[in-house]
C-alpha cells in the first residue's frame, strides 16, 4: 500500500476499493478482526477520507459529529479546496467511530473523533487540507505518467488534471485506477496559498440543507430498526435517591407494555456512569412506555442529599466567603497593593446552576447481543459512547459499533454518554433492540448542570484610577465533583481559569476557591466556566468605572492595551492577545454609537472575552421603562476566530450564541428543594423567544490572520454582561444575580 507521512500524528495511504474507487485516508495498522455477523464494519484497510469513484463522484468522509455547528460542511470544504473539485460534485458520508484493535490497545481509523471545547475545526484544519492536497497530487502524477510529461508540467482545474505543454486534459474519474496503484511520495505536497482559495472562506450551501427542510435528516430519535422496542426510565426524583420498591401491576396492564425492571444507579459520590437509579419500562411504542411509567408506584430511598436546597447552597457559599479558602494563584504582593490602594471596590455576583436543554431530548439506540453490540447515538463523544457500552456489556470495544446520527443540539450535554449506558443496560437485560427516549421533564431534572457559584471580586485602585490589585473569590459546586481520580485540591481548575484576563495585566492578582458539595450533577455547558467568569469580570469592570468616574469602554481599553501575546496555558492557548479584544470592543462600540446621547431609559452596554482561542465582543442597546419592562433594541456582535473557513456558518454560530446568552441571562435557573430539581419543562425553564431578539441585530465576522480558531463557544461569554451593563446604563439598576428574572420589575417598583 502506498503511503506518505504528513505529520507525526497522521500518516496517509492510498488504495482502491473493490468497486474500483480511489481512496485516501489513514492506514489501519493491524488487520482488524474478522467480519462481524452482520458484516457492518465495512471498509477495513483504510480509514478513508476521500473517495473518487470511476464515475467521477467525490465522496468525502465526515468523521466528526454534527451538532449544528456545521462541521459536516466545513471539513469537506477543506478537502474539496485542495483536491480541486466543484463543490456541487461533492457528497458526504458520515463515518462511524473508527475503532480497531491493535497489538497494543486500540487504533483510530479516522484519528480523533469528538466535538467539545470548540476544537472540531481547528484540530482538523491541517489534516483535512493535506488529505485533499495529497489526493490531488496522486491524480496529477497518474496523469503525468499517462501523458509522458513530468508532474511539474501539470496542474488542475476543478475535476481535471491539465497539462498545457501537451494540451492534455484528463478527468479525475479516468485517473482513479492508476492513481490507486501509485506509491506515495516521501514529501507531502504543498498546500494552497490562502489567496488562491475558491471554496474555503466563501459561502457554500450547507450539506443536508435540503434534508433538513424536508424532514429527511435523521436525528438520534429517528432511528428505526426492525423489531425495535421503546424504553423510558422513571429516575429517582431525589438527588442520589434509590429505588426502594415498586409496584408495576398497573403499569404492566397498560396496552403495549412488555417489561418493567430496576436500573441500578451509581453510588453517591462515585463517578457517574449513568445519572440515577430508576425503573425501566419497555413497550411496543413510545406512548405505551410513557403511559406505563406514569402507572408505576415507586417508593424511593431518599439517600444522603434529600435535604439539599438552593437556599442552603447560597447560604453556605456566603458563609464560606467570610473565611479563607484555597489560594490557587497569588501573583505579586496582593495584600500590600490592597493596603496601599486609594480605593477598594468589592462586589458579589450570583451565577446559578443551568441546564442544557437541546431541542432533541436525550435518546439512544442499542442492540446488545452475546458477542456484539450496535449503538446508534446522537453524541458529541463517540469514543465515550464506546467506553460506556463496553462498561455495561463487558464486550471488547472492537465488538461494539458506534454510529453517529445528526444531533439535535449538543451544548456540552452530549459530551457525557450516560444515555448510552442506560440503553445498553436495557437492551442487555431484555435481549431486544431498544430505543431509549427521555422526555423533556427527564432532561430538565437529570442533567450535568453548569455549576452555580457566588463570586466576590475586589480591586484596589490608585488615585488616577489605575487598578493595582485584583482578586476573584469563588464558592461554587465544581464541575470536577465526582470525576474519577480527581483530588480535592484540583476542583477549582474547572471553575477559575488562571490565565484569563486580567491576569498578567494587573500585577497583584489572587484567585481563591471554596468548594460546595451540593448533590447536583455537573458538567460542561457551552463555554463552561467562561459564561460565569465573563459575566462577573465584565460586570465588575463596569462597576469599577462607575466607582472611579471612568468611562467603561476606556477603562477596558486602558487595561487591555496594545496587541501583544501573553502566555496562556489553559485550553485555547498557548497565548492570549488582549489587543484583539480591544479591536472588537472598539468595533462594536463604534457600530452601536457608543458615545451618543440617548433618551432617558435607554442605554448601551459592552463586553468582550477570549475563549478557546477565539475572541468576541458584544454591544447591547436596551430600554427599561418605569415598570421595569426590558426591551433589547439593538445588538452588535463581533467575532474574531482568526480565519473563518465558512463565514456564513461562523455568523450563524455568533447569532445563535447571542440568543443562547440572552436565554440564559434572562430566565434560566435550576433550583433544588428537598433534594429535588424544581424545574421540569420550558414553562419554568424558558428559552429566549423570537420576540426577545431585535431585528436590528448585526453579527460581524472579522478575520485576523490565517489560523482558524474555535467558534461554537466563543460568542456566548460576553452576552450576559453586555446586556446587564446596558440595563445599568438605561436604568441605574445593577444586576448582580443571574438570571435577570423579575429583578428589574421589583427594583423599579421601589
Amino acid at each position, binding site marked *: 500500500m502506498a503511503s506518505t507521512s504528513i505529520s507525526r500524528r497522521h500518516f496517509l495511504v492510498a488504495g482502491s476499493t473493490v468497486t474500483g474507487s480511489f481512496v485516501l485516508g489513514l492506514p489501519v495498522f493491524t488487520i482488524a478482526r474478522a467480519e462481524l455477523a452482520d458484516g457492518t464494519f465495512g471498509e477495513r484497510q483504510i480509514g478513508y477520507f476521500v473517495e473518487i469513484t470511476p464515475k467521477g463522484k467525490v465522496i468525502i468522509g465526515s468523521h466528526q459529529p454534527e451538532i*449544528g*455547528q456545521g462541521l459536516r460542511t466545513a471539513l469537506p470544504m477543506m478537502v474539496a479546496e485542495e483536491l480541486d473539485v466543484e463543490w456541487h460534485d461533492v457528497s458526504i458520508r458520515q463515518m462511524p467511530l473508527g475503532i480497531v484493535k491493535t497489538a497494543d490497545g486500540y487504533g483510530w481509523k479516522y484519528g480523533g473523533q469528538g466535538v467539545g471545547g470548540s476544537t472540531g475545526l481547528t484540530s482538523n484544519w491541517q489534516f483535512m487540507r493535506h488529505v485533499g492536497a495529497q489526493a490531488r497530487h496522486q491524480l496529477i502524477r497518474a496523469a503525468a505518467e499517462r501523458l509522458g510529461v513530468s508532474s511539474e508540467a501539470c496542474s488542475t482545474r476543478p475535476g481535471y488534471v491539465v497539462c498545457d505543454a501537451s494540451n492534455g486534459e484528463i478527468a479525475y474519474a479516468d485517473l482513479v485506477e492508476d492513481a490507486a496503484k501509485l506509491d506515495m511520495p516521501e514529501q507531502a505536497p504543498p498546500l494552497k496559498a490562502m489567496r488562491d482559495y475558491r471554496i474555503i472562506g466563501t459561502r457554500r*450551501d*450547507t450539506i*443536508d*440543507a*435540503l434534508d*433538513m*427542510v*424536508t*424532514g*429527511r*435528516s*435523521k*436525528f438520534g*430519535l*429517528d432511528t*428505526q430498526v426492525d423489531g425495535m422496542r*421503546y424504553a423510558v426510565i422513571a429516575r429517582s426524583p431525589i438527588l442520589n435517591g434509590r429505588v426502594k420498591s415498586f409496584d408495576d401491576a398497573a403499569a404492566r396492564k397498560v*396496552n*403495549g407494555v412488555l417489561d418493567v425492571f430496576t436500573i441500578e444507579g451509581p453510588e453517591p459520590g462515585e463517578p457517574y456512569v449513568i445519572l440515577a437509579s430508576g425503573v425501566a419500562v419497555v413497550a411496543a*411504542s*413510545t*406512548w*405505551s412506555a410513557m403511559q406505563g411509567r406514569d402507572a408505576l408506584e415507586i417508593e424511593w430511598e431518599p439517600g444522603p442529599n434529600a435535604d439539599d436546597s438552593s437556599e442552603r447552597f447560597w447560604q453556605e457559599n456566603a458563609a464560606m466567603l467570610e473565611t479563607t479558602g484555597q489560594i490557587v494563584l497569588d501573583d505579586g504582593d496582593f495584600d500590600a497593593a490592597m493596603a496601599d490602594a486609594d480605593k477598594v471596590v468589592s462586589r458579589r455576583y450570583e451565577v446559578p446552576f443551568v441546564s442544557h*436543554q*437541546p*431541542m*432533541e*431530548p436525550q435518546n439512544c439506540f442499542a442492540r446488545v447481543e452475546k458477542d456484539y453490540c450496535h449503538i446508534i447515538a446522537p453524541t458529541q463523544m463517540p469514543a465515550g459512547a464506546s467506553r460506556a457500552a463496553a462498561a455495561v456489556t463487558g464486550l471488547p470495544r472492537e465488538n461494539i459499533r458506534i454510529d453517529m446520527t*445528526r*444531533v*439535535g*443540539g*449538543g*451544548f456540552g450535554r452530549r459530551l457525557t454518554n450516560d444515555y448510552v449506558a442506560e440503553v445498553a443496560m436495557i437492551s442487555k437485560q431484555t435481549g431486544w433492540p431498544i430505543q431509549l*427516549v427521555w*422526555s*423533556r421533564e427527564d432532561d430538565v431534572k437529570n442533567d450535568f448542570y453548569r455549576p452555580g457559584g457566588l463570586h466576590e471580586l475586589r480591586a484596589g485602585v490608585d488615585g488616577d484610577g489605575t487598578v493595582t490589585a485584583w482578586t476573584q473569590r469563588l464558592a461554587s459546586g465544581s464541575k470536577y465533583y465526582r470525576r474519577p481520580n480527581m483530588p480535592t485540591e484540583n476542583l477549582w481548575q474547572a471553575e477559575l481559569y488562571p490565565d484569563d484576563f486580567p491576569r498578567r495585566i494587573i500585577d497583584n492578582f489572587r484567585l481563591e476557591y471554596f468548594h460546595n458539595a451540593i448533590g447536583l450533577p455537573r458538567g460542561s455547558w457551552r463555554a463552561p466556566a467562561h459564561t460565569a467568569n465573563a459575566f462577573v469580570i465584565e460586570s465588575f469592570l463596569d462597576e469599577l468605572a462607575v466607582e472611579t468616574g471612568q468611562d467603561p469602554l476606556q477603562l477596558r481599553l486602558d487595561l487591555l492595551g496594545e496587541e501583544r501575546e501573553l502566555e496562556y496555558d489553559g485550553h485555547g492557548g498557548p497565548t492570549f492577545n488582549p489587543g484583539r479584544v480591544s479591536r472588537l470592543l472598539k468595533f462594536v462600540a463604534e457600530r452601536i454609537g457608543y458615545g451618543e446621547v440617548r433618551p432617558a431609559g435607554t442605554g448601551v452596554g459592552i463586553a468582550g472575552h477570549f475563549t478557546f482561542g477565539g475572541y468576541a465582543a458584544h454591544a447591547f442597546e436596551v430600554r427599561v421603562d418605569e415598570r421595569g419592562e426590558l426591551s433589547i433594541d439593538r445588538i452588535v456582535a463581533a467575532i474574531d476566530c482568526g480565519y473563518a473557513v465558512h463565514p*456564513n*456558518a461562523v455568523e*450563524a454560530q455568533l*447569532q*445563535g*450564541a447571542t*440568543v*443562547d446568552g440572552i*436565554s440564559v441571562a434572562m430566565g434560566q435557573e435550576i433550583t433544588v428543594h428537598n433534594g429535588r430539581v424544581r424545574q421540569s*419543562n*420550558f*414553562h419554568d425553564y424558558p*428559552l*429566549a*423567544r*423570537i*420576540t426577545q*431578539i431585535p*431585528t436590528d*441585530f448585526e*453579527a460581524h465576522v472579522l478575520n485576523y490572520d490565517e489560523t482558524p480558531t474555535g467558534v461554537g463557544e466563543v460568542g456566548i461569554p460576553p452576552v450576559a454582561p453586555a446586556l446587564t451593563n446596558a440595563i445599568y446604563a438605561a436604568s441605574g439598576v445593577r444586576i448582580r444575580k443571574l438570571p435577570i428574572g423579575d429583578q428589574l420589575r421589583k427594583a423599579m417598583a421601589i
Partner: protein
Amino acid sequence: MTSFKVNGQTVTFDGDSETPLLWVLRDHLKLTGTKFSCGMGLCGACVVHLDGRAAASCRIPVATLESRSVTTIEGLAPGDDKLHAVQKAWIELDVAQCGYCQSGQIMAAVDFLERYPEPSDADIDANLSSMLCRCGTYVRIRKAIHRAAEIAREEGRRG
C-alpha cells in the same frame, strides 16, 4: 378505530385513542420528520397542519382526528424540484443549525404566511413567539419568512 388522512393518504389507527398524533406519526407511520421535544405544547417542534392550520401534534389525541386531514413536513412539497416557498427561503438563507426544530418552524411559517402574505416583523413576533429554537436561529427565521413571502409573490406572478 380512527381513520384520517396523512399527506393525502388514508390511514387508520386502532391503538389507545389517547395516543397523541405525534407518536402515531413517528412510531406507527414512521414519519419521523415531525419532532418530539417538550410533549406539552410549549415549543412547536411537533407542529403539523391539521385541516390546513398549524397545530402541535403532541397535544392532539388521535381519537379527535376522525375524517380529518393532516399534513406533515414530508408532505409539504410534492417533490424536491417543487419545494414550498418557505423551504426554498430556508435553504437560501441557511436557517437551520442543528435542524431539530426546523420542521415545526417551517410548518408554522407556512400557515402563518397563508394568513399574513405580507407580514411585518411585528406580525411575525406576535404569531410565532411560541416556536422555540435552542440554536437561536430566530434572526434568520425572520429574514427567511420575508424572503418566502417574496418568493411566493414571484411565483404567483409567474402563475
